[in-house]
């Protein structure tokens, strides 16, 4: 696909007239309830995986997950209001508020130019299951009038817009485990195209429900290492036996560069490139040879005007399933050639678990923190190397490396592939 030795290095002029920077970040997940806490855990290699408390997991093949801890929705969102929001909407609002507060942006000053795009793989699962249970046990006339608006997968996007007063373009990108990566990528295109100046973009998911666990167990997709929850998510390790279901939200404020400079915003990084492809191969299995994700990586590099050798860190999809990492590794080699061996990469799902639709945006936040602090996060739980996964996955311990260009990859059931490229704040001009 590409021979890095003959590819020209990055051109001086960026390939897009409207550059897009990140001015705020928010996250809530199993390892922390805000970005500072999340990043502290990730760079320290701490797992957030523990036994399930959200429902009685007795009788389930898997009894652990990556739950958000110590989150009080009534205190944060209001005693009455939080009851009208599925957990996935609650988490989205929390992360969006953190991101917007950090960005210090006055949305009311120009609300129609501020969009919201919160991706989700599943939407309000807990609400849906409770609704079905009500129909079964009490009959159809006992279903709540809030059932429908709480359950729909677009409502995190809608509720964040209501909470922030953002009146620009708004929808939820839905592509299973690539949803929030799509949300960020499509937001990049929207801002480049001039359809908005600012987009609050990310993902939210609250899948730790009876049906969520039973459904993925039925597919054989989840780790069943019930005696060692913190050691269960081991992407790239030979002993990996499935992913760990997790919940949370991650949101970034994406802003046109000049717009950010004009208001004196602190720039946290740049979204430099995006591409998306589809395998068109199988409902749940990635395409042979990692062709689709390799194509996404090559197209994202072209979109950013970068060469493969420019990439200094990759946050991998790395779910901890046998098939994913085998094919993802093949895809990385296809996209980067021998240079793949020179690029440190990690799967932070080893600590956070797999947040499904949130994974792409959480990993975007982690990638931006890594470049800000010059620390590449590890892939924890590396015990037994897998000869099929022989790239440098930063095993077990974070590494001090100042990367300025990094890639984040996401793949989803349905054959969706997304590759995003981020730049460090140091590579963004401070005036124009």
């Amino acid at each position: 696909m590409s021979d890095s030795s003959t590819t020209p290095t990055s051109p001086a002029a960026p390939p897009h007239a409207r550059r897009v920077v990140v001015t705020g970040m928010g996250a809530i997940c199993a390892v922390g309830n805000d970005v500072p806490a999340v990043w502290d855990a990730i760079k320290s290699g701490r797992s957030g995986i523990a036994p399930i408390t959200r429902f009685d997991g007795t009788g389930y093949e898997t009894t652990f997950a990556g739950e958000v801890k110590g989150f009080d929705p009534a205190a944060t969102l209001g005693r009455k209001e939080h009851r009208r929001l599925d957990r996935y909407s609650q988490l989205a609002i929390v992360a969006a508020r953190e991101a917007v507060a950090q960005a210090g942006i006055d949305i009311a000053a120009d609300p129609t130019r501020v969009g919201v795009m919160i991706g989700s793989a599943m939407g309000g699962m807990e609400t849906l299951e409770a609704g079905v249970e009500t129909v079964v046990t009490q009959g159809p006339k006992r279903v709540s009038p809030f059932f429908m608006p709480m359950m729909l997968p677009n409502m995190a996007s809608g509720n964040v817009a209501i909470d922030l007063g953002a009146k620009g373009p708004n929808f939820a990108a839905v592509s299973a485990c690539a949803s929030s990566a799509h949300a960020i990528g499509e937001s990049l295109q929207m801002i480049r195209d001039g359809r908005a100046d600012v987009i609050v973009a990310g993902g939210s998911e609250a899948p730790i429900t009876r049906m969520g666990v039973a459904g993925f167990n039925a597919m054989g997709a989840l780790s069943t290492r019930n005696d060692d929850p913190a050691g269960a998510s081991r992407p790239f390790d030979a002993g990996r036996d499935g992913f760990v279901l997790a919940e949370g939200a991650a949101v970034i404020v994406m802003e046109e560069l000049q717009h950010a400079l004009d208001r004196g915003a602190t720039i946290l990084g740049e979204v430099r490139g995006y591409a998306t492809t589809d395998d068109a191969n199988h409902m749940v299995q990635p395409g042979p040879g990692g062709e689709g994700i390799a194509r996404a990586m090559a197209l994202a590099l072209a979109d950013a005007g970068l060469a493969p050798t420019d990439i200094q860190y990759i946050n991998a999809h790395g779910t901890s399933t046998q098939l994913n990492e085998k094919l993802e590794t093949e895809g990385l080699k296809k996209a980067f050639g021998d240079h793949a061996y020179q690029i440190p990469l990690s799967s932070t799902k080893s600590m956070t678990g797999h947040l499904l639709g949130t994974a792409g945006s959480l990993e975007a936040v982690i990638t931006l923190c890594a470049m800000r602090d010059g620390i590449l996060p590890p892939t924890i739980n590396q015990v037994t190397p897998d000869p099929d996964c022989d790239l440098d996955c930063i095993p077990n311990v974070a590494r001090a490396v100042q990367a300025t260009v990094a890639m984040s990859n996401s793949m989803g059931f349905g054959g969706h592939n997304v590759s995003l490229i981020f730049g460090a704040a140091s590579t963004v001009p401070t005036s124009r």
Partner: protein
Amino acid sequence: MHPSRETRATGGRVVVTGMGTISALGLDLPTTWAALIAGETGIAPITRFDATDFPTTFAAEVKGFDPTVLGRKEHRRMDRATQFAVVAAREAVAAAKLDPSQPPERIAVLVGTAMGGIETYSENVRLLLNQGPRRISPFAVPMAIPNMAPGCVAIDLGAKGPNFAIASSFTGGANAIVEGARLIADGRADVAIVGGTEAPICDIVSAGFAAMGALSDRNDDPQHAVKPFDLRRNGCVLGEGSAMLVLEDHDRATARGATILAEIAGMANTADAFHQVALPDDGEGLVRAMRLAVGKAGITPEDIGYINAHGTATEMNDRVEAAAIHTVFGARTPPVSSTKAATGHTLGAAGALEAVIAIEALRTGTLPPTRNHDNEDPGIALDVIPNISRPARIGAAMSNSMGFGGHNTVLIFTRPD
């Protein structure tokens, strides 16, 4: 593979070269359109589940659909919503007569859906409640997730370009058209297969909408229950189906000798940021979307010859939408119809189905009627093309969509010449 094309933006003119539908009015577009302009309705008593104890016992179901056309084994692994999308996409692609040499990496698929495989999901929850967690099908999750409609369309057609689902409740199908047109204009794809799909006629969705008071409960007269813009309107009815369109760059379509059905002249997507399900009285977000779309089309409101309204037949929707249309069009409002009295409210498919209808109106010079219109509502004061379709040669047609969550999407189509 053509990485270098990724940033090759086109002249920006995007056209429709193929369309397919499956709805309560018919299993393909010709049947659906003929029934629509004949003033027929697809609304009838529910057969998909036992609705005896439900507040509303009728819906707009697709009739006579044989899913085995998708393959004896394959159709069992697709939720009904995905089945509809694949069928409609096949019709649209066949109509577009795509060049066999078209690189599959440059074909995008975007499908809007409000809730994806809700029937599969709710059936499996029921199974879990009754028989425990270990009886769930391995296909439950893949069949239920909303992105499997574009995923399976891509597998069926071998389309390897950009691919995702759009959830924005009832504007999803319209948003897929907007984003597909943008993919083409940005040079990110040569062909975009876009639209919407929904299969919501199951117990939990019916119960959920009824709990909100959103559904008509005229159970004694299903065919005349849904009365958009009528003084006696009392709610919408669930409908199912899919509509898919093939979008291409104008110059490329012309160069390959494709039949151009319409041009997407204007489009916009806004948010109310007002309330989860209620609309602001002045329809501010819809007003803004209509104005943005008209501006993008480079025309004036007077150029719009027909509006296919969102027109759900709820008290609030029709009142607010009419107010918004009056605000944008002033004294000269064009003819407006809601075809939901015929098709039912197909939720995430509605925006795409009604885009196809607006294009057929433009192409054929026949404006479809608003069925069941008996009592003028002085608060509406629009020409709603009551009951009987009307010949009218028009140059531009608008389609409005609005959804829970405060989404508004407006599309404007013009004749290709």
